[in-house]
């Protein structure tokens, strides 16, 4: 459903600014859904920006607790990053498979995305658990508060994404590649890629900048 625009003439326009491109009418459903979801993602990014801001404000407030460089483990973070970036690729493959209605590649792409997401979550969970076990939990200092909240907020989003992913697989299994299922799949893919972008921010601001200090 391509949108067509017709060109009207000056007399249709009270301000006589010359040619007017007439609005063609309501957009197709797929466009509307994607657009609305984009707007949601922007709002989600605004929320993350608050946690980033809080982290920037509180990063030096260690209250005699550990600094970032003392607790961050580059190797784990590198594995996490690779997992998440790869999962974005496999999620893209699943989207393409859904568009050409290939069930096998869709399930495979989604399953790999899911596994990569779970590995990411497992590593993050272990990092958190280790810190808490060493007495460096979020109540230790304002820096750790901000660290746990920012990284944890991203982790919660990934967890929700995994839940959504499994629901999408179940839905394709039950309903096939219906128009509304495909629209949801598109939103899911947008969501997953957005989490990747936010992780790039977390990786740079928290782990890269932090390990130097």
């Amino acid at each position: 459903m391509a949108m067509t625009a017709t060109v009207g003439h000056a007399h249709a326009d009270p301000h006589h600014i010359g040619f007017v491109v007439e609005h063609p009418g309501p957009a197709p459903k797929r466009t509307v859904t994607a657009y609305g979801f984009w707007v949601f993602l922007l709002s989600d990014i605004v929320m993350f920006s608050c946690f980033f801001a809080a982290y920037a404000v509180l990063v030096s407030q260690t209250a005699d607790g550990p600094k970032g460089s003392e607790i961050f483990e580059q190797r784990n973070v590198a594995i996490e990053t690779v997992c998440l970036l790869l999962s974005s690729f496999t999620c893209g493959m699943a989207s393409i498979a859904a568009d050409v209605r290939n069930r096998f590649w869709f399930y495979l792409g989604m399953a790999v995305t899911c596994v990569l997401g779970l590995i990411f979550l497992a590593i993050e969970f272990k990092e958190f658990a280790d810190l808490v076990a060493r007495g460096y939990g979020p109540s230790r200092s304002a820096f750790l508060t901000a660290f746990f909240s920012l990284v944890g907020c991203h982790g919660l989003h990934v967890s929700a994404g995994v839940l959504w992913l499994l629901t999408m697989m179940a839905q394709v299994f039950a309903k096939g590649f219906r128009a509304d299922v495909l629209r949801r799949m598109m939103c899911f893919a947008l969501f997953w890629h957005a989490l990747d972008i936010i992780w790039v921010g977390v990786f740079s601001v928290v782990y890269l900048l932090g390990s130097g200090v």
Partner: protein
Amino acid sequence: MLGKLDWSAIPFDQPIPLIAGAIVLVGILAVLTWVVVKGHLPYLWHEWITSVDHKRIGAMYILLASVMLLRGGSDAIMMRIQQAIAYQSQGYLPPEHYNQIFSAHGTIMIFFVAMPFVIGLMNLVVPLQLGVRDVAFPTLNSVGFWLTATGALLVNLSLVIGEFARTGWLAFPPLSGLSYSPGVGVDYYAWSLQISGVGTLVAGINLVTTVLKLRTKGMNYLRMPMFCWTTLASSLLIVAAFPILTATLAMLLLDRYLGFHFFTNEAGGNVMMFMNLIWAWGHPEVYILVLPAFGIFSEVVSTFSGKALFGYRSMVLATMAICVISFMVWLHHFFTMGAGPDVNAIFGIASMIIAVPTGVKIYNWLFTMYGGRIRFATPMLWAVGFMVTFIIGGLTGVLVAVPPADFILHNSMFLVAHFHNVIIGGVLFGAFAGFEYWFPKAFGFRLDERWGKLAFWFTFTGFYVTFVPLYVAGMLGMTRRLQHYNVAAWRPWMIVAAVGMAVLSIGVICQIMQLVVSIRNREALRDRTGDPWDGRSLEWATSSPPPVFNFAFNPDVRGEDAYWDMKTHAKQQLLEHEVPEYQDIEMPRNSPTGFVCAFFATIMGFALIWHIWWMVILGGIGAFATFVVFAWRDHDEYVIPAAEVAAIDRVNLEERRSLVSLAGAI
């Protein structure tokens, strides 16, 4: 098993909340019994509770706002009486109760009166003005409404189970932190705002997408009615600002529940960060509320002056300028908190700059009226009353935007008078104007003009008698939120303000009477043509109330003031003679998703407040399951056959034709 909840949560020793709670409970039970006994329950369920029709949802938003206005208004009456009698005495409200009342008053009036009122009007009117059949996401729209209702329910629950926050409507830490507010009050506050905040965000996303992506053919951006523009600006602000509120309250809750240190005094927490974050949301919030009101006034002034809006493009520009600048003035809410002269100067100047586009708007309205044939119907009275009142409020606002003046007036009754001046004079007058103006569209009959005018004059007078004394008291050094005081000079002003409150209350009673009288006389007040005010935009091109599909045909727009254009260019005659070719219309099916989702959200919110963890998990699973069930349904639309569309549309065409023949050629 039940977390912190036990019998001590019920305030048996405090008669006021207990009696108020009992009255409300009896009221609710009476209404429910009436609904069930009369057999209205199926109608209510199928036509309203599960409805995804934007007009119905809009009407429910407004109903919620009106009920909560009575609740917030009772708080206001109690505070005015307290301050009138608590001179050198304790008055009748103990401090901890008084503190809950002013906190609840502010929270309710902003989040559960002003917000739902303007969102309700936007929901009701914007799709009609854009010439489309529904909003972008109808079911989500219903979810948004019911989540807002959940928030309102939780706030009111705190009246009888536990307590509400005693921290003021923005719950500044460290007072709102666990060490100084160990009770459940702040938790009630934060969770109800978190839940209703999700609802507001959903409404914002929905309206942005609707305005940007769902306009009828030919409805170019610069042909949209002003109300659509202000809706767009306000919704953009919701999308950009409400996530900040969500994040800030989440941080506060983490501090309270898990011992985090965002805003604590210990371990490096930063209290000023809360001020910055909450006002980075809070100042745009002011414009989220007032921009739609500006849109309403634009529609009303233009319609009742019989002229196109003066300076339409400058109005659009002013609206979008306000939308952007509103994010750059937040610091003026805490000039006194040590930001230093340079920062204060910049924010002071920005605060004065934002008054410029507002001034542009005022002049545009005045020039719209100039040379027009003005009809002083009730909506127009509210609009003119607004202009006078809002200018005064704006001037006192520019005054407190000057940092040196603000150091003296900060946190005084002067400030209280100022923001009531702009919120009542701007938002509430706008909401009432919109209510009077679009009521016939929503329900098919006009409101009684005599009671409407009485309501206006009592409210208008009552407003000044109440709030001018507060300005004076502020100048005399009275600070806000005082439970009692010993300064004799303040006393007379507090008594005058209490009298003003009584006059305001008469205005409210008039408004209720107006509704009762109008419903009783609805046959005489019936609007048969769909165009009771000789309107200019597309909502008047369909019947009152509009059919579920709004328009039998998506209108084709050729310029500004689309419907006026149709009327003057004899399109009406065309409509008369052509027999249109009707087509089947697909509409979204009703869905209980919103209601069920809010049901689980209520359980979850209540459980979180009282630390009942198993119930939290149960509520979460329930909410997720609701969405899955919704995603699994196979038929989300139904078809209205062409014949039925034709039958509905012809009735309205007949009425319009008779109007045309009565008036001769238009």
